[in-house]
Structure formats: structure tokens, C-alpha cells
């Protein structure tokens, strides 16, 4: 049986690698075959053709496409994402390395908040099935999912930051404080950082909590219908125990998978919120890189986000196979 799971994991891993390779190739083609000049950003200088040529050489853009592709792949394997056009003397990976933690903090905190609220809310909604509270609750949740994130963010900003001045409006902290944060620990130990986290985290959570809530609710309803719950009831377990320890425990498994997937997807989706709150993360960097035609940086940020998504998809699969013993077996069941 464990061999079945091991095979499953190895297979999934190889699959993820292949998926990543295809994405990376698409990315390469997308950026290389783009209609605009990748060197567009060097202005305010009197450029000669030769200088342009030299620059192209510096970014390896003067070689034939297939050579560029090979170099690109090799560099990716070395996690070398090249130099940016706009940030003097800084490599793409340096910038992304600075951005990634911020994005992760924001993503993880908001997901944690959203999923705690969502799971509990989902249980409550399932328990209150058919009641007025449930109707109002789920409708409200649908509303939060339907409202554009940036709009919610704008409104929250208006009131909490601009009108009532309760919370800071943007960034991760004032520069005078920030420059003393030498390590991530310094940042995480600073209350100022957490104060700056509140609004964007909350805004994201408002949006994100819908999925786990609705998922948990429908899973609960499904599990509650299953025979083993009926038997649990017949066996005299209390409704509370059945609800929490039986139904919720089983129903939460897909939600955990969704959470894992959610990490990947919300990192990709945080773009908007990071822009509204000027949060120095991957998404904002991507937007600015695209706006300023800093293609190596845009490409790097996109790659990193895609990488995280693929990894998270892989982990979600793993998690699923570990949490649900039937999955490993289903790989086996295909045989018999």
C-alpha cells in the first residue's frame, strides 16, 4: 500500500515538473515574441546603435532564439532570473527575494483568518441548514465574494485610514523603522509591521472566506448524508460529536486541500490588493514591472508565482493522498 502512495507521489512530482517546464517554455515564448522592444526603458540618455547592441548583448537578447531558450532554462535551473532593466545592479532574484516574504505573510495571514472563519461558518451554516440565519449568512458570503476586492479595500481605506485615522493606509511600515529591520525576524517582531498588516489582511480575508465557508457547508451537508454518520447516530454518539468529530473532520479535508491550493492562487491574485495598499510584494512588483516594461523582472515575478502555484498544487495532491487513505488506493484501484 505504501508503495502505491510512493508511486503516486513520484508520479505527481514528475507531472508537476513537466507542467512547470511547459509553463516556463510558454513564458519564454510570450516574453520573447512580445511585440514591443524589450529595451524600451533606457531613455534620458543619448543612445547610439552600438550602445543598444551592447545592452542587448548584456541581456543576451542578441542570440538566436533557441540559444536564448537553452540559456534561459539553464539559468532557471540555477535560479538565476537575470538582471532587471530598472533596478541598477540588482538581480531579479534579489528583488523577488525581498518581495516574497511580504507576499507570503499577507497571503498566509489572510488565508488563516479566512479559513478559520470559513470553516467555522461553514459548520454553522450546515448546522443551521434551512434556517433564516443560514440564508442571510450564505447570501452575505456570496456578497463578499462578488464585491471587487479593490473596491472593498478602497472603502475600508477611506474609513479606517483616511477618515478615522485608526490604521496606516499603505506599505509595511515607515522607512525610518523599516531600515532597521535587518532580518525577517526583526520585521516580524515589530508591532508596526503587524499594524500595517491589518487592513490588507482583513480586506483579503473578507473576500477569501467565502470559498471555505461555502465549501465547508456543502461538504458538511454531503458528509452528514453519508451512511457512517447515520450509523454514528444509531451508535448513540451525540449530535455535537457527530457534527464536530465526525462530519467536520471528514468535511474539512477538501477544505484543507483548497487552502493549500489557495496559497498558490491568492499569491497570484494578491496583485490588486498589493497595489491598493502599496504592499511591497510580488504582485505589486509584477504590476510595476509590466508597467515599466521591465521584462526580466515581470518574467521572474510571473515565474515565481507560477512556481508557487505548481508546488502548492503538488502539495495539495500529497496532502490529499495523506489525509484521505482512499486516494493512494485509488491509484491501486485503477489496477484491479
Amino acid at each position: 500500500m505504501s508503495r502505491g502512495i510512493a508511486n503516486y507521489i513520484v508520479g505527481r512530482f514528475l507531472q508537476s515538473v513537466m507542467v512547470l517546464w511547459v509553463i516556463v517554455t510558454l513564458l519564454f515564448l510570450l516574453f520573447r515574441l512580445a511585440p514591443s522592444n524589450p529595451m524600451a526603458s533606457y531613455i534620458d540618455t543619448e543612445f547610439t546603435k552600438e550602445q543598444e547592441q551592447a545592452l542587448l548583448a548584456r541581456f543576451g537578447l542578441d542570440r538566436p532564439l533557441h540559444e536564448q531558450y537553452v540559456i534561459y532554462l539553464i539559468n532557471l535551473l540555477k535560479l538565476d532570473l537575470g538582471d532587471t532593466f530598472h533596478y541598477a545592479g540588482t538581480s531579479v532574484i534579489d528583488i523577488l527575494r525581498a518581495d516574497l516574504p511580504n507576499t507570503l505573510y499577507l497571503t498566509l495571514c489572510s488565508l488563516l483568518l479566512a479559513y478559520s472563519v470559513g470553516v467555522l461558518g461553514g459548520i454553522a451554516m450546515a448546522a443551521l441548514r434551512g434556517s433564516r440565519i443560514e440564508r442571510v449568512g450564505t447570501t452575505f458570503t456570496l456578497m463578499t465574494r462578488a464585491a471587487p476586492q479593490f473596491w472593498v479595500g478602497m472603502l475600508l481605506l477611506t474609513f479606517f485610514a483616511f477618515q478615522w485615522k485608526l490604521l496606516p493606509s499603505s506599505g509595511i511600515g515607515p522607512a525610518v523603522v523599516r531600515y532597521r529591520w535587518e532580518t525577517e525576524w526583526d520585521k516580524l517582531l515589530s508591532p508596526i509591521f503587524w499594524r500595517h498588516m491589518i487592513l490588507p489582511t482583513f480586506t483579503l480575508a473578507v473576500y477569501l472566506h467565502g470559498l471555505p465557508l461555502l465549501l465547508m457547508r456543502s461538504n458538511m451537508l454531503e458528509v452528514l448524508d453519508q451512511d457512517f454518520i447515520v450509523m454514528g447516530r444509531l451508535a448513540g454518539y451525540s449530535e455535537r460529536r457527530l457534527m464536530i468529530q465526525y462530519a467536520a473532520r471528514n468535511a474539512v479535508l477538501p477544505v484543507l486541500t483548497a487552502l493549500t491550493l489557495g496559497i498558490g492562487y491568492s499569491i497570484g491574485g494578491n496583485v490588486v490588493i498589493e497595489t491598493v495598499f502599496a504592499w511591497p510584494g510580488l504582485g505589486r512588483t509584477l504590476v510595476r514591472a509590466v508597467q515599466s516594461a521591465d521584462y526580466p523582472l515581470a518574467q521572474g515575478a510571473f515565474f515565481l508565482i507560477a512556481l508557487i502555484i505548481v508546488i502548492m498544487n503538488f502539495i495539495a495532491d500529497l496532502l490529499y493522498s495523506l489525509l484521505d487513505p482512499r486516494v493512494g488506493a485509488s491509484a491501486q484501484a485503477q489496477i484491479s
Partner: protein
Amino acid sequence: MQQEAMVRGELRGKKTVQFRQGSALRQLWETNLEVFQRDKLALLGLFIFAFFTLVAVFAPLIAPNDPLTPLKDANGDWIKDVVPYWMAVPGEDEAEGYVNTFHLGTTNIGRDIFSQLIYGSRAALLVGFSAAIAVAVIGTVVGLLAGYYGGWIDTLLMRAADVAFGIPFIPFIIVISAFFDPSIWNVVVAMAVLLWRDSSRVIRSQVLVIKEQAFVSAAKVSGASELRIIFVYIAPSILPLSFLYGTLAIAWAILTEASVSFLGFSDPDTISWGYMLQDAFNSLALSREAFYWIVPPGLCIMLTVMAGFFIGRGYEEVLFPRLRRM
């Protein structure tokens, strides 16, 4: 309602029988009908769509002004930053040389916000419906092919879906928008390129289930061709799923278009609600406390997206009856 073919025939030369032919389309229609009969919220969603569709179609009749041209007062100056007439201080506007008839005021360069809101429904519905069609059609075809034929076709298509699952959606649209001219079609194209992944997977697994059902084998034993089996037997059963993903795609498309517009990657000559919010945000509507400018487009987005969710939920409850509220 749908006109249904009747079968009429003579039976052993004695009596005439006449009865409803019955068809997959009829059943599909009934499924749709059931969705909206069962779920009042889904019906509400349908009304919202219908409402905004009417607004979009008759926008030139409803909107009092051109949404893009700044309005000018008697002196030829722009009528800028005007609050809605119901918020205005009486007499103030007349002094400036114009009559305030603006339901939602004007923007900082004198465009009529209400007219923008009306015209904005066009972009939203255009994006929404085209994305829905693209997603539903691609997802259905891919799901059908992969599920029915299996083998390498399945492997190829599902790996392609894996790739689509690995591509971050909004970043993808941003990059696409940067490379091509800003246009609402970027959103549609990006959705079509990526979002078939969800619907195709679900439809594929549904096809796998249906394909194994006895009535499909029965059709085979009767000599039905593969195309007949796919299109007469399997496709109608999965179409409600396509509708489900189609309606959800409407919601996502409208939301996504708003986000992309907000980030400034939209075509400024196409008024959309997202563009309005972007305009408002960049024109400092928050600092101007011009909530009449910020709130309505957001509400409209929310309403249409919710309409999509409501209808989607209606389909879900019919398709997956376990979710039904008792």
C-alpha cells in the same frame, strides 16, 4: 416556451395517437426551468441579468449624456466635480451657469457619472457573456473529448489543463494586456485560454460516469455511432454543467475585468465599471469624498457578479441535490 415536436400516427389503422415527442432539448429546458422555479435567488439573478441587459441595449436612450464627453457650462467650461442634484445646495449650480440634473454628479473633468454607469453595463455584459460562452464551449468540448475518447487524447488534454492550472490568472491577464493593446477582449481571451480548466475537468469526470451508464451501452448495442452517442446521449446530460460553469464565468469575467481595469490595463475609450472605479481612484474621488462616484459602480459589479453566483448556485442545487436546503 419551447415548441416541441409532436408525434402523430395511426395505430394499426384503427386509432390515431398523438403525443409529445420528447427530446434532450426539452429536458434541458426543463432542467433550466427547474433551476429557476426551485430557487428564488436564481430567479432574482436572472432578473438582474435581464435588467442589466436591457440597460445595456437601451443605454443610448437611458443615458442622458455621452459618457466620455465632458459637459460644458454656458461659458464653455467643464462642469466638473458636481455633486448629484439631490445632494446639491439649491441655487449654487445656477450661479455657475448650468442646471444640475445629474443623478450621480459629474467627474473631475465633467463627465456624467450616471451615463457612465449606464454605458458601463455594456462592457460588463459583453465581457461576461463572451467569457461565459468561451469557457463553457471550450470546457465542454475538451471535457467531452477527454472523457469519451480517453487514452492519449485524455492525457494530452488533461495535462494541458494542469498547465492551465499552474498559470496565475490575473498576472497572466496583466502580462497579456501589456503585450497587446489595452482592450476588454484581453480579459475574454485570457479567460478562454485559462478558465476552461475547471469546467473541462468536471465535465470530463461527468462524461466518464455517463459513458459507463447502461443507457449508453444500450445505444452502442443498438448500433449508434460514436458521434450519435456523444451528441445525442452524453452532451445533453452535461450541458447543465456547462451552464453552471458558464454562469460562474460571467461572474469571474466581470470581476476580473474590473480588477484589470483598476490596475490601469484597460482601454480608456471603453467605459466599464472597473474603469470608472480606476478613474475615480486616480482622480482622488476618495479625497473628494465623492462617494456618489465610488459606490455605484462597485454596487453594479457586485450585483451582476452575485447574479452569476445565484444562478450558478441554482444549477448546483439541481445538479448536486445533496446541497439542497431541506
